[in-house]
């Protein structure tokens, strides 16, 4: 990511001048809203924001899933909001413009009548939050910046360079504040979620390839280590939030479109891990290498749980 490029921040919550408890309420509710949208898109269908906007008008917004599937089934990437067909720069720009417009709509509640709301709820939860929060660079996962007073009541900060690359991961309870820092290599926006009070330190790092920004959330004291990992495609910034002690592992997962890096925050014990999609990895491998074996070779270290065969004893 170029140094001068604006950081990957999707939305900024402006709480300047607001006193307690409004920064907390605003931040938590906004994060919860984003989380719900993300989760809804993950559980259900792929988001259809770009496609739905291609229909234009209010009706398209009311029934995003239906309209999108009719036109371009699963045509939109989860995080980028750019369709697979948008290969040429011109069309891609158009798609990005549509995505931006759709994102703008996300900032407002969809103004529908109560009957339409009920119909939407009954129809399916999978389209209720079409999601898609796309970052400016189309590469990063969801990020929310909160600007305002940096008090104990607020979860917010800008980076020292005042450029504000922020991914606010408010895991756990609300009083946990976040402190932002840039990586030493000055290339990557880093979000440091330091849980607890500010004295608790955070450790920054770059990825080995010096390309991927890494967000390390080091919880508690400095002994608790963090582990960096690059994504398989060597393109994605990865944020690893390793909570608690070192045994607790984090596993990376790529998004289906193979473009969006994902920050996995694995809370709690090690069983609660995330497993890469076998299908997605195979598909990607077949497209890029042509053989399944090479895919195994390439991704087995990342996707071992999915590729492992049952033991003979079983």
């Amino acid at each position, binding site marked *: 990511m170029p140094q001068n490029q604006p950081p990957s921040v999707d939305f900024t919550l402006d*709480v300047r001048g607001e006193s307690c*408890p*409004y920064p907390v309420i605003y931040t938590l509710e906004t994060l919860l809203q984003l989380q719900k949208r993300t989760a809804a898109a*993950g559980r259900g269908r792929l988001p259809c924001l770009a496609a739905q906007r291609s229909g234009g008008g209010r009706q398209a917004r009311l029934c995003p899933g239906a309209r999108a599937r009719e036109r371009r089934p699963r045509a939109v990437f989860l995080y980028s909001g750019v369709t697979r067909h948008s290969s040429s720069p011109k069309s891609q720009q158009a798609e990005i413009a549509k995505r931006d417009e759709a994102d703008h709509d996300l900032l407002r509640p969809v103004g529908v009548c109560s009957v339409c709301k009920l119909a939407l709820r009954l129809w399916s939860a999978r389209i209720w939050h079409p999601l898609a929060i796309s970052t400016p660079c189309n590469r990063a996962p969801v990020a929310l910046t909160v600007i305002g007073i940096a008090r104990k009541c607020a979860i917010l900060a*800008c980076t020292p360079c005042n450029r504000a690359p922020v991914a606010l991961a408010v895991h756990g309870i609300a009083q946990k504040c976040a402190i932002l820092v840039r990586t030493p290599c000055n290339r990557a926006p880093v979000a440091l979620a330091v849980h607890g009070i500010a004295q608790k330190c955070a450790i920054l790092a770059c990825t080995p390839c010096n390309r991927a920004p890494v967000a390390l959330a080091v919880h508690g004291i400095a002994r608790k280590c963090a582990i960096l990992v690059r994504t398989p495609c060597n393109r994605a910034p990865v944020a690893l939030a390793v909570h608690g002690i070192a045994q607790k592992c984090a596993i990376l997962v790529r998004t289906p479109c193979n473009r969006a890096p994902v920050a996995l925050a694995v*809370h709690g014990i090690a069983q609660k891990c995330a*497993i890469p999609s076998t299908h997605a990895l195979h598909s990607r491998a077949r497209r890029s290498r042509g053989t399944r074996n090479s895919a195994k070779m390439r991704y087995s270290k990342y996707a071992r749980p999915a590729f492992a065969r049952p033991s003979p004893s079983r």
Partner: protein
Amino acid sequence: MKTLHARLFQNYWSPYLVMALAGLLSALYFGITGTVWAVTGEFTRLAGHAMALFGADVSSWGYFKLIGMKGTTFTRTDGWIVWGMFAGALIMVLLNNNFKIRAPRQKRRWAQGFAGGIVAGFGARLALGCNLAAFFTGVPQFSLHAWIFMVATAGGTFLGAKLVAAAWWKGKPVVIKGAFVRKAAKPSTVQPALGVVAAVAYAGLVAYLFASGHRMLGVAALFGALFGILIERGQICFTSAFRDLWISGRATMTKAIIAGMAVSSVATLAVILIGGMEPITKIAALSTLVGGLLFGIGIVMAGGCETGMMYRLMEGQIVFLPVFIGNVIGAGALAYAWDHMGVYDTLVKSGSKINLIDELGSGGALAATLIVLAVGFAVAAYWQKHYRFKNGFKKGEPAHAAKSTAVR
């Protein structure tokens, strides 16, 4: 040296340390002056002076007879406690280079703060004390009314938290797409220099008070500044001690205040026993319950209690100016209603002064106080660990967006 400077003036202090120090200082202040660390009593007197300016004869009002109206705010120890707190907080804010005029984005906060200030001021004086005299310094005096007030305040803050979370009250936040880019603020040396000047000037004032024979005023000015320094450095807000429990589950301030009260209880009892002093006991009555409830609602509406309001105002959060004015107006309204609207006869007259030392003895009072405080601390810790905001952001939650995507 730089690290020490950063620790003292650039970083906030641990609220536990701050509250423990505040507890010790309040006990010491009680031992020296025979009065407790309190502010809303002086707010009421300020309201009385203001009403007198407009021609009202407040000398015959029962409430002012109760709290005393002799002299001016600069000839009373309670007055110097208030102004000292303002001064101490301002000095630390300046040394921290942290003063900035901050206005809320939501214009409604002005009216909300004013209304909350009135309700909180009225409730505090109805209960004969705010979060200090009827709470932080009330419990260590083993006065039963402080416990009633504390429970009622907790209930009031719960109702207040429900109120401020309502959409029509909180308003809609400003959400901007993308990043917010702004120029880096240059570190200024003007504020720290002003802070040093203010500190030297205030120290000179305290020295003058001692030198001119006004020792108690000097002590009050000194302790007021120390209290102001502590509440600013520790960001002590009694409102957040309760309100955050209901909104975010944060209990840091709650636990810190409980720890401070425990320290203060031991120290105050030592002062009482060594100095042979009488603990300050207030009337425990229905007014304490109602006042605590109103106070709890009011401080959440206003966004801060009396102490929180003071240091935030010094930081430049000017929305707390109407809160301060509202506090004074509310306290004055209670002073009027005390006699003229039958508040005393209805809510206070039936009460009595109950002190745990009289009921349980010194050891029993201290043990009972510490046990209840320990239980409160444990409950707060449990609450903090298990509370989740609207069932969101759960620890160990596997349903991360990335995982959801992967397993789909």
